[in-house]
Structures are given as structure tokens and as C-alpha cells.
């Protein structure tokens, strides 16, 4: 029975990882930019959920409706105003630039909210579900379902909508897309906006489960890296597969090896995958 519980925990965690990584993977795949601000966007989303609950009494699922447009706007503005200027520059420049922006954002959060851990405590608490010996906290299940829903929405946008098809077109062949009349800078900004919106929404959901602090941004970013490399870059199914895989590995690994080895395990896996299968579980070759 312990085995089933461990796998269940891993799946719940994995869905949240998928949601964290989907936006990150989109930005990396389409813009060829590693957005080091992703972790701070997530934490900022958590603070939004916390503030909305404290001040307005909004539950996290309501805050999602607020977070998505707000973070989309933030991401769009950052890409349009700053990153688009250096989008053609070498890898190093965009990477260092987002690092600088992240230092600013993270420092601003430290000043605004202090480094203390905060906790969004729902009143009344949602409790747990138990089926036989299996126990699942309800808030985790709700967060997991919303995470899946958000990832599906992103997938649907990319598959079905006009702007989504344009994003995919730019990812496949930027020059050809431009010749077909796609406004590439706008699409870049839109893709970055979607990435930021996913990060913000993931943050809102994570606020239901984990304590909130600006310090958490690094570990969240690390998860996004690992999931992207495991699953394959730039595709939503890749993020889902990578997320679930990482969730399961961490959950099983922390039982077998001990919880202190979870991070070592996931980053070792990252290095092995980079070397053996850099296109990930689902990715196609040639997108490096």
C-alpha cells in the first residue's frame, strides 16, 4: 500500500511540475531564451494569491482569473520593452539579461515581503480524503486538477487558436513565418506573456500547498530546467511527461534513498539526460 501512496504523491507533484515547466518550455522553445525570472514569477503569483486571500477573501481558484491577465501583461511588457532588443544576441547575453532582471525582481520582493515564510491558510481547511489506507490532502488534489486544466488550456491555445498556430509557426521556422505575414516581435512577446501567465498561475496554485518566500524562486526554476530537459523542449506534452516523470522519480527516490537526496537525484538525472538524450523523452531531434 505504501507503494501506491508513493506513486500517488508523485503524480500529484508531477502535475504541478508540469504546470511550472509548460510556460518555461514554451519560452525556451519559441524564443530560444532561458527565462531565469520564471522562478520569481511563480513566487510573485504565490504572493498574489496570498494577498488576494488576506485582503479580499478571494480563494486561489478565483485569483487564477486575476493572475492570468496580470502576468500575461507583465510578461508581454518585459519581452516587448527589454528582451526583444537583444533577442538576436548570443545565448550568453539573453541568459545574463534575464538573470539581472531576476535579481531586481527578487530583491524587490525581498524588500516588499521580507524573507519570512508566509502561508496561505484556507479557512475552513479542506481536510483530506482517505480511501482505505491511502490519504490525499484535498488542497493538493484541487491544485493538481487546476494545474492539469491550465496546461490543457495552454495546449488548446497552441493547437487551436490563430495566435497559437502563429507561435508554433515561429518556433518551427521564423523566417518562413515572417514571410507568411506573422509579426514576429509581437508573437515573441505573446509567447513570453503566456509563459509568464503560466508561471503566475502555477504560483497561485503552489500557494495552496507550500509556504511562500522569495527564496523559493531558485528551487522552482531548477524544477523547470529539469522537467524541460527530461520531457523535451517547447512542447506541452513534453512538459507533462517530464513533470510526471520527475514527480515520480522524486517521490520514489526520497523513499528509497532518503529525502535529502531528492535534489541531487533530479540534477544528476538532468546531466545524464543532457548527455544521453538531449532532446528529451518526447522531443524531436534538431531543435537544439
Amino acid at each position, binding site marked *: 500500500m505504501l507503494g501506491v501512496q508513493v506513486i500517488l504523491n508523485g503524480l500529484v507533484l508531477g502535475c504541478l511540475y508540469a504546470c511550472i515547466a509548460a510556460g518555461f518550455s514554451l519560452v525556451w522553445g519559441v524564443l530560444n531564451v532561458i527565462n531565469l525570472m520564471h522562478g520569481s514569477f511563480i513566487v510573485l503569483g504565490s504572493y498574489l494569491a496570498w494577498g488576494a486571500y488576506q485582503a479580499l477573501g478571494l480563494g486561489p481558484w478565483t485569483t487564477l482569473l486575476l493572475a492570468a491577465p496580470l502576468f500575461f501583461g507583465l510578461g508581454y511588457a518585459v519581452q516587448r520593452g527589454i528582451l526583444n*532588443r537583444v533577442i538576436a544576441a548570443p545565448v*550568453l547575453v539573453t541568459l*545574463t*539579461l534575464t*538573470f*539581472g532582471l531576476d535579481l531586481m525582481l527578487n530583491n524587490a520582493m525581498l524588500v516588499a515581503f521580507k524573507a519570512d515564510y508566509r502561508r496561505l491558510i484556507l479557512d475552513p481547511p479542506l481536510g483530506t480524503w482517505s480511501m482505505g489506507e491511502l490519504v490525499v490532502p484535498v488542497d493538493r488534489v484541487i491544485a493538481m486538477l487546476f494545474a492539469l486544466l491550465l496546461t490543457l488550456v495552454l495546449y488548446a491555445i497552441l493547437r487551436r487558436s490563430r495566435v497559437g498556430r502563429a507561435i508554433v509557426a515561429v518556433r518551427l521556422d521564423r523566417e518562413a513565418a515572417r514571410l507568411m505575414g506573422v509579426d514576429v516581435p509581437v508573437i515573441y512577446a505573446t509567447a513570453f506573456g503566456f509563459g509568464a501567465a503560466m508561471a503566475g498561475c502555477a504560483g497561485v496554485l503552489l500557494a495552496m500547498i507550500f509556504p511562500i518566500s522569495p527564496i523559493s524562486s531558485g528551487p522552482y526554476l531548477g524544477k523547470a530546467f529539469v522537467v524541460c530537459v527530461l520531457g523535451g523542449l517547447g512542447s506541452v506534452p513534453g512538459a507533462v511527461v517530464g513533470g510526471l516523470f520527475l514527480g515520480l522519480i522524486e517521490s520514489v527516490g526520497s523513499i528509497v534513498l532518503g529525502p535529502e537526496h531528492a535534489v*541531487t537525484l533530479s540534477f544528476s538525472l538532468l*546531466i545524464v539526460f*543532457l548527455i544521453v538524450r*538531449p532532446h528529451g523523452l518526447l522531443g524531436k531531434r534538431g531543435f537544439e
Partner: protein
Amino acid sequence: MSAVRTTPRSFRIALVLLVLLAGLPFLGSAYALRIGTFACMYAIMAVSWNVIGGFAGYPSFATAAFFGFGAYCGGILLGKSWTLLAAVSIAGGAAFVAALLFGMVLLRLRGHYFAIGSLAVAEVLRELTNTASNLTGGGMGLNIPLAVKGSDSVLGEATFFFWAMWAMLFLCFISVRLIQTSKLGFGLVCIKQNESAADMIGVNATLYKSLAFAFSGVFVAMAGVLYAAWVHYIEPGDVFDVLFAVKPIVMALLGGLGSPVGALLGAFAFLGIEELVWRNYLQIHSGVLGFLVVVLLLFLPHGLMSLTQSLRSRSGRKAVA
């Protein structure tokens, strides 16, 4: 190519600067010595990073890994009462061999993938250090005994470590300059411009890249040993800090990519800025640092040295007119 070229003249200026820096202990100020030691340490990191990042064009984020590796190697060996010189040599040698072997596989990746891979090395090492608490003290950190016998005063010890770090920088700077002018340096520039073509005309790309990676690590690891012996206490979050991976890049960008002289000057300029920010804006120092990074990349992508060049060409144009 837009990278700043290292003319022999700027090399000579840098050498003069280095020699002048060696006179710092005669000021007799412990603060100046501390800043001076940090300046040398940063310069070692920036000049070293230049070998892999500037010459070969591989965006390495492994500097933190090398530094932490060196610091812990040194800390453990000094704790077993080895001499400082032995600890430095062993840590340097181990880092060189490890980087050479690891580089063979890691350097098959390019661009972002290599960046993430090299970043992950530091993460793995940090977590391993955290968990191997029998050897490293884990998250409690590691206390390191006094490595220098005979220096009876605080100032004496500070002077010793300043000179040690300075000597390391001097060694590093000369070595990197030699690499730049050697066949290896030429091969690396070929790899940066077009790796497949370089491979085709007979540059052993794998070997060259791995050597560059190893050289970018060896001096940083040895500086890590000196740092550990200097501060007497290290902990994983401190020496494997991701900022140690990013700062050298910013310094090299500040000075202009691909030039050891630029990296050296960039490191000194960066430390000056960082110290000013620390002093005046303690609460928001990392934010101000981030702001400077953003401004630098947006408005001065070719570094401070390009500023003097553009000024020179502007005044030259005026003279012609």
C-alpha cells in the same frame, strides 16, 4: 569580429596595473587588503572563464562548481593538516583532471544545453557536499584551521593571503595570455567561429574544448583553496553560490568578451561597483546589481573597452573632418 582585440600595448598596461596592485600591502590598511584579495579572486574567475566562454564561445556556468570544489578540497586537506601549498596543488590537479574528463562529455552540448548542464554540475556538487556530512560537515559548514604558521598578527595573515591570491592571479593571467597566443588559443577561436569547419580542417575540437574547460577551472579551484584558508569557514551555499557562476560572465562582458586584459579590468571595475553598491544600498544591493547588469547588456554589449574605442574613432573622424 566585434570582440575587443588584445594588443600588446593593452597587455603591457594590464601588467603594469598588476604590478602596481602588488604594492597594496604597503598602505597598511586591512580594508584595502581585503578588497585587494577579493579583486584578485574575482579577476582569476573572470580571466579563467574567458578561456572557455570568451575564446571557445561556450557559455559555461561551471565557475561556481570549480570554486566550491577547490574550497572544499582545500578545506578538507587543510583540516587533515596538509600544508597550504600541497592543498592548492592537489585541488588544482584534481580540478584539472575532473574538468578534462567531464568536459569530454559535457562539451558535446551546445548553447543553452551546455549552460544548463554546467549549472547543474554546481547544484549536484552542492547537494553532495550537503549530504556527505561526515567529510564536509554538511550544512553546518566546515571550520578550517589556520594554514599559515608564523604570522602573528591579523594584518600579517591578511598580507600573506593577499600576496598568495595576487600570485595566483599573476600565474593565471600569464597562462591565459600564453594560451591565447598559442596553437590552442587559435584552435579555440576557430571552434567559436565554426566548430564543424574547425573539426574538418584538423582541429581536435573535443580535446581543445576539454582543455579549455580544464584551464577555465584549474585556477579557480586553486583560488577556492586560498579563499577557504583565508576565511577559515565555508559552507555549501556560500562557495557553490550561483552568483560565482554569473559574476565572472558579467565581468568578462564588462571588459569585453574574448580578451584576458578586458576580463582583468572588468573584474576590477565590477568589484568597485559592487563595493559601492554594498556600502550605499545594503538592502537593495542585489537589485542594483541586477539593474547594472541589465543596463550594461542593453547599452554596452561590447564592454567598457568598446567605449574608449568608439570615443577614439569619433575623435579620429573629427580630425579627418
